[in-house]
């Protein structure tokens, strides 16, 4: 059981670090953001202040623990009220999701294209060599 008083001591702080690390990375998930928006978390002043507080993850000494660095971009966007309001729409979340996945595939597509180009070149060399 996590004692509220333990938040004040070192172990509590370390725990809080891990929790905040997890939470901030969850923000990279647009579906989760949609979930939060629909349940009205973004309207809560305390939550908005918390999001502002979470900006400390942008510092390099903290950022190096992030596995999903896209969450920082989402965190920055979440500082804007307009964005928070838009996230209530499922289509908005879906759009962001699609764009994220497309961007995610960018490098693999690029690599595939390069490989294809290389393969074609090799073929040409072979045929011209013959």
């Amino acid at each position, binding site marked *: *059981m*996590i004692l*509220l008083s333990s*938040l004040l001591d*070192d172990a509590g*702080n*370390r*725990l*809080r*670090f*891990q*929790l*905040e*690390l*997890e*939470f901030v*990375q*969850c923000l*990279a*998930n*647009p*579906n*989760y953001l*949609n*979930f*939060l928006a629909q*349940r009205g*978390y973004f309207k*809560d*002043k*305390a*939550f908005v*202040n*918390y999001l*502002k*507080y979470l900006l*400390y993850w942008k510092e*390099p000494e*903290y950022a*190096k*623990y*992030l*596995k*999903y*660095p*896209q*969450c920082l971009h989402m965190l920055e966007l979440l500082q804007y009220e307009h964005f928070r309001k838009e996230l209530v729409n499922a289509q908005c*979340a879906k759009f962001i999701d699609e764009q*994220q*996945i497309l*961007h*995610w*595939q*960018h*490098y*693999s597509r690029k*690599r*595939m294209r390069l490989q294809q180009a290389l393969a074609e070149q090799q073929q040409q060399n072979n045929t011209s060599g013959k």
Partner: protein
Amino acid sequence: MLAISRNQKLLQSGEENQVLELLIHRDGEFQELMKLALNQGKIHHEMQVLEKEVEKRDSDIQQLQKQLKEAEQILATAVYQAKEKLKSIEKARKGAISSEEIIKYAHRISASNAVCAPLTWVPGDPRRPYPTDLEMRSGLLGQMNNPSTNGVNGHLPGDALAAGRLPDVLAPQYPWQASDMAMSMLPPNHSHDFLLEPPGHNKENEDDVEVMSTDSSSSSSDSD
């Protein structure tokens, strides 16, 4: 006629003297005026010469002024650029990170497919560039709301995510949740109430958070 002419002669001799004196007088005045005119002419000439000098000096001064202005502008630009350079040097020094760390970090985020899709990815593959539902629930946050741990509603609003339906997962399975390095890190200190207005960070209001948690416990957290 003689009588008249004699009178005229008499008159004339008297008058002649007068006229002559007048004439001499006038001539004298005239001579003086001539001298005066000559002097004035000389003075006027000198004035013109001086005016020309003044004009020349004026134009010199203007020229100097122009040059000084140009010099000032050039110097101002140079100073400004130097300041900008200094600023960027300072910025670069502040952000200096060892290349080794950057490479290590690059490895971490690429190896786990967090920023680059796996080469065999096809639509339908559950992997995503963000933590998925399953990963979120099996993390520390998700576990905190596990009712089997005696219902401590966590102090973070994110716990609301998985209230009520959690697998009984133990230690973090995913490297994004915690690592050995992370164990020694501490978050920035803040007193815990986020309800109060910033400036400065505020305390989280635990009561408020509990309310939020219970609100969300009803619906499912499937957000797809």
